[in-house]
């Protein structure tokens, strides 16, 4: 009897323990910090927030009000300012070359005079012209200047805490494969910044929280972080679509992953990668002009963003008289895609566009390969298929058959066409730092851990931009001031894109990812997989004026 009672107790406790582990809110920890690791239970979820429903209308690039918007010139901007700023040698703003470097301004604002540095430049884009280069060094505080202090939430005299919420414990295709990698990229960026002098006398400290892909846990993570971190940085979480009612109240800037259209409409969010619907428009336009199919099929994931992307693409293709003859909705948990291959095969399109996720698209590719069927002109898949590490997952089938569109350039083998955007010094630095932080094993087979996925690339880029912007404010670092600094300047990523968040709307022109990149999967010399840059580049809005001069675009050719 006693034995039975003990067993009951053990079973009850183990069940509760397992339940607790499974059902608790997001857990958080600090990374990139010398201080003790902090793990605390998640707070109770916040009240529910309204969800934004993305519209499918992608025909307008937003308010085309920035006639004087700076033309981005990443290649030229990367090198020239003695103050560490990227001088803009773009002809459009050439005359302002000596006065337009925001970082030079910040260095001045940290001068011994002790003048407050948190007054950002006037929030009108284009007045200063030159983008701040991500690859330039962060200015050190001027000697004898005002001492750093706890100027805002998440900021102390020597530390700036930044937060990230990721679905690291979600399903393998989302959690370890992408969200976990996001944390590693952020960690690499933070370590790089700290090793190179920090942010005007302060070190960055990364605080992470795992929401497992659960919005309720994500809200709990947010509640824990909102008063403890200065800003949030790119995070792979569904939360970024439903938290818009909270950010203005809490006044916390979030440099977000940019997956949801609604992120572009939130004044406190600074999306760090392409708007999916604009990307769908750009790739459809590119396909119509370059591939020239008569008919197209569309594969899309059955979620709001990808349904909207499908609708945008259909509309764009119709402009060229290209008919969408078949479309299939995938579920991310689909055990088999044979029936969808059959549906597509029956529709028999010349070309297939994909707005979906890696796992179901990989299944589709495998099942199409098994059925020995392919559209005669190939596929163009969104960035989620384009990570350099995904080749083996998709199999031989994708070689010479799949194009992919990405927000940032991707490093490839030697390729003169990829010198701009892809094989840049900043890409090399990102690659070196990822290996330095995570060890050589990280590289695996051609970046198997998605370190060069464009969402994870956005983590690297935006932490560096955060460091630059925070450095400009010096001791008086505040969330409000930081927001204004981000909006007042343009930021050269060094990966082929200059980022802008216009103050009136982050969705307005110049839209950061107006020009994107197309790569094609090819066979590598060692028999593996490689990507090849295909030009010209796709463009969302050719009249936006922020296409790098050296870019070969459909419009310019």
């Amino acid at each position, binding site marked *: 009897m006693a034995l039975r009672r003990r067993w009951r107790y053990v079973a009850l406790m183990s069940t509760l323990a397992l*339940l607790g*582990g499974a059902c608790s809110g997001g857990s958080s920890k600090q990374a990139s910090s010398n201080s003790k690791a902090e793990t605390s239970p998640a707070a109770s979820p916040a009240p529910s927030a309204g969800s934004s429903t993305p519209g499918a209308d992608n025909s307008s690039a937003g308010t085309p009000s920035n006639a004087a918007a700076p033309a981005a010139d990443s290649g030229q901007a990367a090198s020239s300012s003695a103050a560490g700023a990227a001088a803009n040698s773009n002809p459009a703003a050439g005359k302002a070359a000596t006065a337009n470097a925001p970082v030079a301004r910040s260095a001045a604002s940290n001068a011994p005079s002790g003048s407050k540095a948190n007054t950002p430049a006037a929030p009108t884009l284009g007045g200063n012209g030159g983008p701040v280069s991500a690859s330039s060094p962060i200015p050190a505080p001027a000697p004898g200047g005002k001492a750093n202090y706890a100027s805002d939430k998440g900021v102390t005299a020597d530390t700036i805490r930044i937060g990230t919420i990721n679905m690291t414990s*979600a399903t393998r295709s989302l959690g370890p494969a992408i969200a976990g990698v996001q944390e590693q990229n952020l960690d690499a960026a933070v370590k790089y910044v700290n090793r190179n002098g920090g942010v005007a006398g302060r070190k960055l400290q990364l605080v992470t929280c795992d929401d497992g892909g659960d919005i309720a846990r994500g809200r709990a993570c947010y509640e824990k972080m909102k008063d403890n971190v200065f800003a949030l940085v790119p995070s792979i979480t569904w939360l970024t679509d439903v938290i818009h009612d909270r950010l203005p109240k809490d006044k916390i800037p979030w440099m977000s992953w940019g997956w949801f259209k609604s992120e572009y409409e939130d004044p406190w969010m600074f999306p760090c990668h392409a708007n999916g619907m604009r990307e769908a428009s750009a790739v459809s336009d590119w396909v119509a002009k370059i591939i020239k199919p008569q008919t197209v099929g569309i594969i899309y994931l*059955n979620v709001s963003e990808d349904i909207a992307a499908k609708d945008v693409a259909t509309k764009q293709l119709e402009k060229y008289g290209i008919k969408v003859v078949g479309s299939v*909705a995938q579920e991310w948990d689909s055990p*088999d895609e*044979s029936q969808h291959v*059959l549906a597509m095969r029956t529709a028999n399109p010349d070309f297939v566009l994909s707005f979906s996720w890696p796992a179901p698209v990989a299944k589709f590719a495998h099942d199409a390969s098994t059925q020995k069927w392919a559209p005669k002109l190939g596929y163009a898949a969104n960035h989620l298929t384009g990570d350099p590490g995904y080749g083996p997952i998709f199999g031989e089938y994708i070689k010479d058959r799949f194009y992919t569109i990405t927000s940032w350039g991707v490093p490839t083998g030697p390729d003169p066409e990829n010198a701009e955007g892809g094989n840049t010094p900043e890409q090399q630095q990102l690659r070196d730092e990822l290996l330095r932080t995570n060890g050589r094993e990280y590289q695996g087979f051609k970046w198997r851990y998605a370190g060069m996925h464009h969402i994870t690339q956005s983590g690297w880029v935006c932490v560096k931009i955060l460091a630059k912007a925070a450095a400009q404010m010096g001791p008086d670092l505040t969330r409000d001031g930081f927001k204004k600094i981000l909006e007042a300047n343009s930021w050269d990523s060094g990966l082929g894109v200059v980022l802008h968040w216009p103050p009136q709307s982050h969705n307005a022109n110049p839209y950061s990812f107006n020009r994107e990149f197309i790569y094609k999967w090819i066979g590598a010399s060692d028999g593996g997989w490689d990507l090849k840059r295909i030009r010209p580049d796709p463009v969302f809005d050719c009249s936006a004026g922020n296409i790098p001069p050296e870019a070969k675009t459909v419009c310019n050719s």
Partner: protein
Amino acid sequence: MVVGVTASVFESAVIIGIFTGTIYAMMALGLVASFRINRVVNLGIPGLAVFGATVYFEMSNVWGAPVLVSLVGGVLVGAAMGAILGVCNLKMTEWPRGFVMIFTLTVSLFLFGWSDKILPPIQVSPASPFGDSGGFKVALTYVSNHQIGTFLTCIVVTLLMAWVVSRTRTGIYVRAIYDDGESAATLGIPLSYFVVGVWAVAGALAALAGILVSPRVTLDPYLILFVTIWALAGAILGGLESFGVAFIGSLLVGLSQGILGAGIIHLGPGLENLGAIGIVAVAVFYAGVKRRDLAHIQT
């Protein structure tokens, strides 16, 4: 709306549906086995499936063991874990069934986490025990050796389990415990032995399902969890009591998905799965209404 469907498209969709259904049927067998002894819906099945497949993957792909040895290894580990779960279950005899069911779910989550720690952080597909290549073309589709092997295995296991339950002394004991455990014990049937034994068999079946399903689905705990949910929908057709009806129910789910997904009937996004579950719901309702008439089939 039915659009111009050729016979070959329909035939292909049916074939695809049958093999998708086979995936669910493999998973349903473990669910039925454990329910058949003490009326517990064993939500530990997906965990055991994933863990068994993980052991198989590690043995075959990492250690380089022969596929057959790896298969046996994975199934034995599944059986051992199923037995442990059976022992725990035995100690919870007086607990509410719902609580025990939740306990088995936590075991799945625990095994998912454990497998995640073992597996590399990318999606992996273990090698098929029937070979990764080979097959033949049928209509517009292609049937691989793996699919044929899985289908035949599923039929053999279903027939074997149905035979054991209906024709052997072991089956009589199992049915007796299922009907009234305490009376069965009074009659001298070793309750513990049979409960642990049947749960071990359920664990072995789950591991076998995981090994045969993961080359197709990929070895992703949550994807296999969703396969189990569809399997549960199929198994419900027989009230979770019959291996044969669970097999048929699972095929029905797969066929519905195959035909609806192949575009023979155009549905909007999301309605494809909803349509499939609707068909199963109607079938379950019918089976429930006609339970007395169908009892001989279900057992």
